[in-house]
């Protein structure tokens, strides 16, 4: 029977400590804005190693006032971030520092029905020095060649005119080809600060 003691005798080595436990939540890569990025993309590391991938946005800062954070993907048979069809929903809640809003609503301007545009996930970023957006987007089984690809996103933004806006979007990428690249950018202007971290959620 291959006990630890036997293995030590056979191999002449000392085995100590508990067996390594794989991380359940592994940081794969970080895209840090250099202050003038037209987009931040992950073109490596999105594969079958994990079932679920999370993208954590920390203080994404926009160059231009009143712009939206967006994403699109590229499948292994694609050439660019322009031909993956997305069907999505979008709702948000918000309030102003002056108490002038205070509402929850569906945002029909920001969903898609089989659209190929970059999908909006964060609304109306402000461009003042202390304004930014943070949140998490989750992409499920991008390497599947059987299913479409589901995603969900929660992004909290300090918007133009000093609103807080929490943005909930979700949907599916209508493609059974594996997706291996993802791109994030503002709807206009650059990403001028912040970072995006890509994590893998362990399969077992």
């Amino acid at each position, binding site marked *: 029977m291959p006990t630890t003691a036997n293995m030590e005798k056979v191999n002449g080595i000392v085995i100590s400590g508990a067996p390594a436990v794989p991380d359940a939540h592994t940081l794969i890569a970080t895209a840090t804005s250099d202050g003038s990025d037209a987009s931040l993309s992950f073109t490596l590391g999105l594969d079958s190693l994990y079932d679920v991938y999370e993208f954590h946005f920390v*203080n994404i800062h926009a160059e231009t006032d009143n712009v939206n954070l967006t994403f699109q993907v590229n499948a292994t048979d694609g050439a660019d971030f322009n031909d993956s069809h997305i069907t999505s929903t979008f709702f948000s809640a918000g309030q*102003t520092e002056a108490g002038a809003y205070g509402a929850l609503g569906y945002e029909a301007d920001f969903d898609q029905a089989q659209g190929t545009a970059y999908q909006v996930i964060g609304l109306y970023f402000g461009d003042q020095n202390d304004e930014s957006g*943070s949140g998490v987007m989750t992409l499920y089984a991008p390497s599947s060649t059987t299913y479409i690809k589901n995603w969900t996103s929660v992004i909290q933004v300090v918007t133009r005119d000093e609103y807080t806006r929490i943005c909930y979007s979700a949907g599916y990428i209508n493609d059974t080809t594996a997706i291996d690249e993802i791109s994030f950018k503002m709807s206009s202007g650059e990403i001028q600060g912040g970072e995006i971290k890509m994590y893998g959620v362990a399969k077992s």
Partner: protein
Amino acid sequence: MALTLISTPLDITVSDTAVATVSITSGIDDTYDSYEFHCVGIHPSGASLPNFVFQVGTAAESGYDRNMTTAYFAAANQVSGTWTGLYYSANEDQQNSAQVFQMLAHGAGDENDDSSAVILKLYEPSSTTYVKHFVSVAQMNHHNSSNYQLNSYASGYINTTAAITRIQFKFDAGNIDAGTIKMFGVS
């Protein structure tokens, strides 16, 4: 490890002495980009249907009183099914308010099997450039008169560019007499 347990500032049962507040005064710094607070089995005592709330403080002060602008919405259902809905609650949000604790879970039940669960995520509290974002989701139930469950979403920003180093959780009336709060760092 991308998600690291930093501390467990609350871990009590109903047989222990209840606490009025849970204050975390160390471990919130620039080691991690974001922090998660997992509040599990939170149970009140000494008040009817209190709200579970939080506030933060900076190194330059002793209190918990930062200005916040927040949004709050919830979905609810009664055991009887007589009232269901998804709604925005202007009573629970804030408009750059100072010294107000932000509600995370509304109307916690105090019967023996009632409890609340909350995950609060705080982004880059050590930043001295940006305001501080937070996002939370809470699930509570109570078996008191209206007998309902509530799934609530509070989020917003703490309107300071000073680093946040402390956070406090409490019920807005009565005590916490059971529950666990764990603080994690996301690397």
